[in-house]
């Protein structure tokens, strides 16, 4: 159905931050004074439009909530036709509100956080660019428009990770993020080509159908094609969402300013892979294999990310490992199909709140600690920055799944759904998710104890202090969301809300189940272990040598080492070989042939070194003679 009213102006959602970005970039230094306010206003205004669109949607019956907006014909040639269309439906509007809502808070926070940066205006321009691209990603009504947003957020991420370009580590991390993402995009692109070849279209309506009943063209897919398509989409999702084996960029991405880590590398962009899988549900439903691989990737990543999180002394990297792990949960849920979709999205939104809050809290701590990120230099900060400490604490309770808080509702839902899958695979996946919850409790408690409790370990010149209100108010709001969002979603009918997109499914929340009790016990064990190691004992300022597992976790489970030896080194070697070959081999061969035709190579050299003009002339004369000769021979 066509969008009406406010929803017909859904293009404003994207246009507002895009215009903000363009103004700030083209306006240059003239906009330095008020650029951050403009950037913040653009995102808040976009949030306002989003809320209005939601209110309008809630006035419709469930089956009428799928609204499309045609903007213009992007390109068409032969059977390939792509329109710039937007889709406003329950799934996209959920993301819109998360992106613009959390995005607005992070914009506000950044006003304070980036106050002393001479390039604050440029920072806000990039943030706005990100918001616009992310909204395009979730609002696009076909795979090509979605892909444009998909690459757009990759660009914004690149610009923001490398925001401090003068730091070589930041520049390298930015490039790495983009390149690894491009590997994922390679898969996604081929998936889209395969759709063109198979369906002749890339439109969501045609392929996926509308109304959650999945009567789209995807329902006619053969298993083989569906598997190929699903796995290719998964490659794309792995790149964007830092899932194994394309996870290595996310930890390096922490080189970017902390609000970037909160917005892009925790709350929104990195969850795009989950969006892609859930949105493409009807394709995955045609292939058992594809879904199984998705769940395996999710389960493996949730364990790997959690283990990495246990070994990091850098507070942002510990949280980055955690992000990997939490997105692993979402991917696992998305791979479970209908029983998992709602929990995947609910956990995604809940995670958006508590992880954004945790990152911004970490930023607030860094702000007071002269940008030191090493938790071994923290300790006892709760007394010095109690608002940050309290809001961080609430986020911590939410992520480890303290009953009643966000994470408990959404994560337990995923664990149970995994067990409900049944069979060996269900048992293995569920157990992975269960164990992951225990490790989560351990590494998050470790962060909590090392940062806020114990005795102070900071150096004499450091004077930790609470951040200004413009930074703490967003923290408080996010903490509020960390506490209530999950419960509100799970108990408040989010499943019914999403049903027109992802289909009806059983998702009664069981407050007391075997898996729930198991999770709770493991959580307590994790907290206790962390307390025993980092709460009850003195934390050394220098990292101890550590066991084999600790070293592995510190080194990101050797992800970079593997990439380096398998891809980078051979790649460099190949490049050098190709350059050598091109100079000697190809050029030499062609020069040799030319010399052979012209007589001896000496003659060619002589011709090349001098009298070039007369040489050119003689060639033309030669051409004329040949021309004449041919005419005589052929015409007669």
């Amino acid at each position: 159905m066509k969008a009406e009213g406010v929803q017909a102006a859904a293009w404003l959602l994207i246009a507002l931050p895009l215009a903000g970005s363009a103004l700030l970039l083209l306006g240059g230094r003239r906009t330095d004074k008020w650029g951050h306010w403009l950037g913040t206003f653009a995102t808040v205004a976009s949030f306002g439009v989003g809320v209005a669109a939601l209110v309008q949607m809630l006035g419709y019956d469930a089956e009428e909530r799928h609204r499309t907006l045609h903007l213009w014909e992007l390109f068409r040639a032969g059977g390939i036709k792509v329109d710039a269309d937007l889709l406003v439906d329950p799934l996209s509007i959920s993301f819109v509100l998360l992106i613009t809502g959390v995005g607005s808070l992070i914009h506000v926070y950044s006003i304070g956080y980036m106050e002393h940066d001479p390039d604050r205006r440029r920072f806000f321009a990039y943030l706005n660019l990100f918001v616009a691209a992310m909204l395009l990603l979730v609002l696009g009504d076909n795979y090509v428009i979605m892909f444009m947003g998909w690459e757009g957020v990759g660009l914004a991420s690149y610009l923001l990770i490398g925001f401090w370009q003068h730091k070589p580590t930041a520049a390298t991390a930015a490039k790495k993020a983009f390149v690894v993402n491009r590997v994922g995009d390679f898969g996604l692109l081929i998936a889209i080509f395969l759709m063109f070849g198979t369906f002749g279209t890339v439109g969501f309506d045609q392929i996926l159908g509308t109304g959650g009943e999945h009567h789209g063209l995807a329902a006619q897919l053969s298993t083989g094609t569906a598997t190929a398509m699903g796995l290719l989409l998964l490659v794309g999702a792995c790149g964007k969402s830092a899932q194994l084996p394309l996870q290595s960029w996310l930890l390096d991405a922490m080189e970017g300013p902390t609000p970037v880590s909160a917005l892009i590398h925790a709350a929104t962009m990195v969850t795009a892979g989950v969006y892609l899988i859930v949105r493409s549900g009807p394709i995955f439903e045609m292939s058992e294999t594809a879904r199984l691989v998705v769940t395996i990737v999710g389960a493996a990543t949730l364990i790997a990310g959690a283990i990495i999180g246990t070994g990091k002394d850098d507070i942002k990297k510990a949280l980055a490992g955690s992000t990997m792990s939490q997105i692993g949960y979402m991917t696992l849920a998305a791979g479970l199909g209908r029983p998992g979709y709602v929990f995947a999205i609910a956990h995604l939104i809940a995670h958006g709140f508590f992880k954004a809050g945790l990152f911004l809290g970490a930023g607030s701590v860094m702000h007071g600690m002269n940008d030191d990120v090493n938790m071994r230099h923290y300790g006892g900060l709760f007394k010095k920055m109690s608002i940050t400490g309290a809001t961080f604490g609430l986020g911590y309770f939410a992520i480890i799944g303290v009953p009643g808080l966000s994470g408990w509702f959404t994560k337990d839902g995923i664990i149970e759904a995994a067990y409900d899958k049944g069979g060996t695979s269900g048992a293995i996946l569920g157990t992975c998710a269960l164990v992951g919850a225990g490790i989560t409790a351990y590494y998050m408690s470790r962060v909590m104890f090392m940062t806020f409790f114990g005795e102070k370990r900071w150096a004499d010149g450091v004077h930790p202090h609470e951040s200004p209100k413009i930074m703490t108010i967003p923290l408080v709001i996010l903490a509020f969301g960390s506490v209530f969002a999950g419960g509100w979603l799970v108990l408040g009918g989010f499943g019914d809300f999403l049903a027109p997109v992802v289909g009806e499914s059983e998702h009664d929340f069981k407050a007391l189940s075997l898996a729930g009790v198991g999770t709770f016990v493991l959580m307590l064990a994790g907290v206790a272990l962390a307390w025993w190691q980092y709460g009850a004992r003195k934390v050394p300022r220098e990292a101890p040598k550590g066991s084999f597992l600790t070293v592995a976790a510190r080194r990101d489970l050797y992800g970079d080492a593997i990439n380096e030896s398998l891809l980078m080194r051979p790649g460099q070697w190949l490049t050098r070989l190709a350059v050598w070959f091109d100079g000697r081999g190809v050029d030499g061969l062609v020069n040799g042939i030319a010399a052979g035709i012209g007589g001896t190579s000496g003659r060619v050299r002589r011709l090349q070194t001098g009298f070039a003009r007369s040489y050119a002339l003689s060639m033309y004369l030669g051409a004329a003679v040949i021309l004449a000769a041919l005419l005589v021979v052929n015409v007669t």
Partner: protein
Amino acid sequence: MNDFPWLSVLIALPLVGAVAVALLPRDRPTLAKQAAFGISAVVGVLAIVMATGFDSDGARFQFTEKYWWIKQFGVHWALGADGIALTLILLSVALVPLVILASWSDAERSGGVDGTAPKGSVKTYFALILALEAAMIGVFAATDVFLFYVFFEAMLIPVYFIIGFYGGPQRSYAAVKFLLYSLLGGLLMLVAVIWLFPLSAKPVSEGGLGHGTFLFTELNTMHVDPTTAKWLFLGFFVAFAIKAPMVPVHTWLPDAAQQSPAGALVLIVGVLDKVGTYGMLRFCLELFPGAAKWATPVVLALAVVSVIYGAVLAIGQVDLKRLVAYTSVSHFGFIVLGVFAMTTAGQSGAALYMINHGFATGALFLLVGFMIVRRRSARISDFGGVQKKAPVLAGLFLVAGLAGLSMPGLSPFVSEFMVLAGTFTRHRVPAIIATFGVVLAAIYILWMYQRTMGGPVREGNEGILDLTAREKWAVGPIIAVIIAMGVYPQPVLNIINPSVHHTLARLDRPDPAAKIHVAEKVAENGARP
């Protein structure tokens, strides 16, 4: 106005202008620059006025003119433009004034680098650029195959002198190499061109036309016997492959690029090389459809090799101009892939890619030229931290680079996507391998950006100034076009698509049908909204 000889005027004007500029007094270089800019601007405006009269639903070739030239040999002065030729002419006339603006001072320094005085005078440089413009318009407008050949070779002369007079230290070598490669290809094509005459002179019963001619619009209805067609196809194809340039006959380009002044390089890579891919699409496919299909597997393989090999080599370069030249080898691989995929999307995408690549690489070469003039070096390792010193230069360089890696929202994305999607529907494996080029593109562009613009300000870069107003006016319009055509390319495709349909009709290659049709879905779920 329909009878106005638009194309002849567009060719004559810059040619007359070239002579006029060459005759200006040697001690008035600024006057020569202003005159050249003025003439090219007038040509640009005229071409745009002409283009507004193009009817994309009308006849295939419009603005046609036909006069006898050499009657004995059936050679016409025949001009006309279909959608593809028109867009390429517009590309040429748009780039020339901007190039003149950008290379305002280039003729005063050899290759913009070593500070020695070039061999030619300032006025000659600009006269050569105008002469090149005339030849470029002519080569796209010619609808007589012989006339096309004449313009094809005529383009070489100004380029040869530009590189040879105004190039870097190794200019003689590069200029001669360029000329040798081009002439070798040109001679092969000449043989093939002339062969067409006796073939067309054969009676209709023997597959000829009954009268000897070089008119493309007649030749493309002729049926050449398969063996002859294969030879003639090769004659044309090798010439175009050298021009394009495709692996393995690409090695003249990096040398020419390294030595050529940046402004002229925009025209060489942005426009002149397009004659190669344009020639394949127009002449190889339409004159010899059977032979083109016969050669397709090999050509696709060469195209894929060009995409990957060019990209890998670009990663390994240490010289900025060579790097961008190799990225073009990769991009030309995409264009050839699209041409020989023989699907509507592939060929429309390829035709669009020619335009987009002209602008995107043009912007990149101009910006590289600005960097080289400032640093007096083209070595990547001599740069570093330029972003701190010249943020506008860095920002525009990044945008041009992103266009080079086909970032969505910038014009090359659409064409690359169409080429790959169009290829995939018929030839999956080549399309998949070529798609890997997008990963390599990210590496060569972003690594180049990181090494030149990122990091701390490296020694020797402290004094780098940001872009001047003149330089902004040269690059700004190109960037604007890149963005506009990235967001709304369909108007250009509307001009291109009909031409592609003609080519595909001649090839008798219908697009592969989708496996699962929308029609079936409507039948099954007819009741659904």
